C-alpha cells in the first residue's frame, strides 16, 4: 500500500502516518479492545478524531511542543492514543513498565518530573501522586476507587474526551524521539532507551516489507508498551500497513482472547513463547496415555511425512486452533532465540517463529529530554546494524 513515502524525510512522524491511514481507510477497523465481554471496535476515522480530541485535552492542561507525557499503564488503547496525541502536539511519550517493582517506580517517578501523566488505575495513580509528579494533569482509564480523590489535576479519560472537541492546529513538528523508556539500573542510576520517529518508521517499514504485512492483518498487542521492541514491531507497522491492532481483556484472559481472535501477527519474546509451550505441556493428556503418545509422536520433528500428514487434521491443526495461532502468518520473536525444546515444538506445530533483533540499548544518563537526540541517533545506528544482521 502507498504510505507517505519512506521515513527518510525527517518531516514524517508516526502521527503523519496515522493521519494518512485515517484518510486512506477511514471506515476500516483500526483498534479492537476486548472489554466487558465483547471486542469493542474503533475505526481509523475515530482513532484520528479521538487523538485530536485528546490533543485538545492535553493542550488545555498546558501541554505544548517539546513537553513529555508519562505513561504508567498496561497495554490499552487509551495509552496508545494518548501517546499519539502527545506526539501530535510535538511532545514525547515517556514509558514506564507498570509491573516493575514499587521501589523502582518510586525512585524513577520524581526524577522524570513529568507534569502530564496517564496512570491506568488507582494503583498507578497512587504511585504518581506519591511521587508528586503529574502536577498539571493525571488522566486515568479505570475510575474504580478514585471517586473521592480530591486532587484537581485528576481527570477521567472518558469524561475528559467527552468534554472537548477536536483540536484546531495541525500536527506539530515532532522532535526526534517519539518514545523514551526509563528504568533504574541495579546501582540506582537512571537508564533510558529512546525510540525516535525515524528509527521506528524505518524499522517498521523493514518489518512490513520483510513480513509482507498487509492492511488485513490482525495483530494482538498483549504486551505492547511493556517493551520498546513491541512498539517497534507492532505500533509502527500498524500505522504503516494500516491493519487492526487488538488488545486482550486483561492479563488473565489473554489466552482465551487470543483463541477467540486468532491473530495473524503476534510479537513476543522468548518468555512469551516459552509460556505458551509450557501451558500446552501442562494441559496435554497425561504422559503414558495413548493420545499423549500419538501427539508426542506427531510433534516430533523427525516424524515421518505421512505421520505429519495424518496428524495434521486430527492433532496439529486443532492444537494450533486452541492456541489461536492457526492464522498466525507472522509470529515474531523479538530478541533472544527460543530454547531448543520450544523451538522444536513450534516448528512441529507449523508455527514458523520469525526472529527479530531487540536492540535495547539502554544508556545510563541523567534524565534531560534535551539530551535525547544524541541517544536516539546512537540508537538508530546500532539498530540498523542489528537489522542488517537479521536480514
Amino acid at each position: 500500500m502507498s504510505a507517505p513515502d519512506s521515513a527518510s524525510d525527517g518531516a514524517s512522524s508516526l502521527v503523519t502516518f496515522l493521519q494518512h491511514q485515517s484518510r486512506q481507510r477511514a471506515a476500516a477497523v483500526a483498534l479492537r479492545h476486548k472489554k466487558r465481554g465483547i471486542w469493542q471496535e474503533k475505526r481509523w476515522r475515530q482513532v484520528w478524531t479521538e487523538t485530536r480530541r485528546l490533543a485538545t485535552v492535553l493542550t488545555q492542561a498546558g501541554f505544548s511542543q517539546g513537553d513529555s507525557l508519562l505513561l504508567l499503564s498496561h497495554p490499552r488503547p487509551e495509552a496508545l492514543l494518548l501517546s499519539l496525541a502527545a506526539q501530535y502536539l510535538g511532545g514525547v511519550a515517556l514509558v514506564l513498565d507498570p509491573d516493575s517493582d514499587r521501589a523502582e517506580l518510586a525512585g524513577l517517578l520524581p526524577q522524570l518530573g513529568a507534569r502530564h501523566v496517564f496512570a491506568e488505575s488507582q494503583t498507578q495513580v497512587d504511585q504518581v501522586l506519591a511521587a508528586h509528579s503529574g502536577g498539571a494533569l493525571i488522566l486515568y482509564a479505570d475510575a474504580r476507587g478514585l471517586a473521592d480523590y480530591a486532587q484537581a489535576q485528576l481527570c477521567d479519560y472518558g469524561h475528559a474526551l467527552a468534554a472537548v472537541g477536536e483540536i484546531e492546529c495541525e500536527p506539530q513538528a515532532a522532535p526526534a524521539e517519539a518514545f523514551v523508556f526509563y528504568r533504574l539500573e541495579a546501582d540506582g542510576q537512571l537508564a533510558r532507551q529512546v525510540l525516535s520517529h525515524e528509527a521506528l518508521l524505518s524499522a517498521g517499514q523493514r518489518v512490513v516489507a520483510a513480513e509482507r504485512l498487509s492492511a488485513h492483518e490482525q495483530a494482538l498487542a498483549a504486551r505492547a508498551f511493556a517493551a520498546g521492541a513491541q512498539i517497534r514491531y507492532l505500533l509502527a507497522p500498524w500505522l504503516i500497513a494500516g491493519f487492526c491492532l487488538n488488545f486482550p481483556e486483561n492479563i488473565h484472559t489473554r489466552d482465551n482472547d487470543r483463541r477467540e481472535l486468532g491473530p495473524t501477527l503476534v510479537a513476543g519474546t522468548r518468555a512469551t513463547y516459552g509460556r505458551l509451550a509450557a501451558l500446552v505441556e501442562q494441559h496435554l493428556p497425561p504422559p503414558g496415555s495413548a493420545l499423549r503418545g500419538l501427539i508426542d509422536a506427531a510433534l516430533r520433528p523427525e516424524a515421518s511425512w505421512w505421520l505429519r500428514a495424518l496428524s495434521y487434521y486430527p492433532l496439529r491443526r486443532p492444537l494450533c486452533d486452541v492456541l489461536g495461532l492457526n492464522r498466525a502468518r507472522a509470529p515474531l520473536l523479538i530478541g533472544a532465540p527460543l530454547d531448543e525444546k520450544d523451538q522444536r515444538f513450534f516448528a512441529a506445530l507449523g508455527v514458523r517463529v520469525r526472529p527479530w533483533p531487540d536492540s535495547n540499548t539502554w544508556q545510563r544518563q541523567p534524565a534531560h529530554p534535551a539530551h535525547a537526540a544524541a541517544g536516539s541517533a546512537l540508537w538508530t545506528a546500532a539498530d540498523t546494524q542489528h537489522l542488517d544482521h537479521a536480514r
Partner: protein
Amino acid sequence: MFYLESGQFSTSYRQDQRIFRLWQARLALVLLLAAAYTVVPWLGSDYLFSAILIPFLVLSLAGVGLNLLTGYAGQLSLGSAAFMAVGAFATYNFLLRLPGLPLLDGFLLGGLSAVPVGLVFGLPSLRIKGFYLLVSTLAAQFFIEWLFTQVPWFANNSSSGVISAPALVILGHHFNTPRGSYLLTLSIVLPLVLLAKNLVRGQLGRNWMAVRDMDTAAAVIGIPITRTKLLAFAISSFLLGIAGALWAFTYLGTVEPHGFDLNLSFQILFIIIIGGMGSILGNFLGAAFIVLLPILLSIISSAWLGDWIQAGQLENLQKILFGCLIIVFLIKEPEGLAKLWNTLRARAHGWPLSYWN
C-alpha cells in the same frame, strides 16, 4: 476439533447472545433443517414417518413442555398426560363445533385451553413443594382422565370417548398422509421449540432456574416467586396441550381418554431424565431414545431370539430395561444425554488439550 473456532468473536452483545455462535454449528443446523424438509420426506417410508419421526417429534415437544416446568423451574410433575389430553380434546371440540376454523388455530386454541387447567393444578405449588406437589399433578392426571371418560360430550358422544382426527387441511393442502402429517408436525414443533429456547435463555428462564436452585435467594433478589412458578405451569401446559393434540391427530389418528394415562406421563418424565433436565436439546435426545429403544429391542429379539420369547415377555423385558436405564442414568449421568453431548463439545473445544477453559 475438526472445525476451527479461532477468529470467531463477537463485537456486540447481540452477536454474543446468538444461540449458535460458531458458523459451523449454524451451517450444520441449516443442513439438518434442509434435510428434514427435502431429503427425508422424499426418501422416507410411511413406517419411518408414522412409527418413528412423528412420535419422536411430538414426544420431543412434550418433553420440552415438561422440562420447562421440571427441569428449569424445578416443579416435579406427573400430570403431563392430563394436559396433553386437555389439548387433544379441546382441539377436537373446537374444530368440531366451530366449522371453518383453520386447523392451526384449532391446535393453538387447544394449547391455550390447557393453560387454565395447568394453572389450576399449579396453584398448590405456591404453598407446597416437592413430593406434596406430586399429589396435585397426579390429581390432575386422574381427574382429567375421569372427566373425559365420564362426560360423553367431550368426545361428541362417541362410544367410550374415542375421538378421531379431523381432516388435516391447511389452505386446501391435505396433510392426512403419513408424509403430510410428518411435515405438519415438524412445522409446528420447530417454532414452538425455538420459542421455548428463547424463553429459557431470557430473563424468565433465569428466574425459573433461580427458583429451582434456591427459592429464598430468588425471592430476596426480587424475583416474583408466585408469578414465575405459575408462568412455568402455564407455558408448560400450553406446549403439552399442543403436543397432546399432535399426539392424537398426527400420530395416533384416533385416541380415547385412557390413551393419556399415567404411563404416558411417566414416559415423558423418562424422556427428560434420560435426555437431561434443564436442557432443550436433551428432550430430542431423550425422545429419540424412548422411541427407538423398543423398536431396536423388537428387531433384536425377532432377529436373534426368534419366537423364543413372546410379545408379553418382550414387554416385560422392555419395562425392566427402561427401569434399569433410568436408574443407571440417575446414578452415572444425572444430567442426561445432553450433559454427555456438552462434555463432548467441551472436549472438542479444547482438543487435543484436556480441560481448556
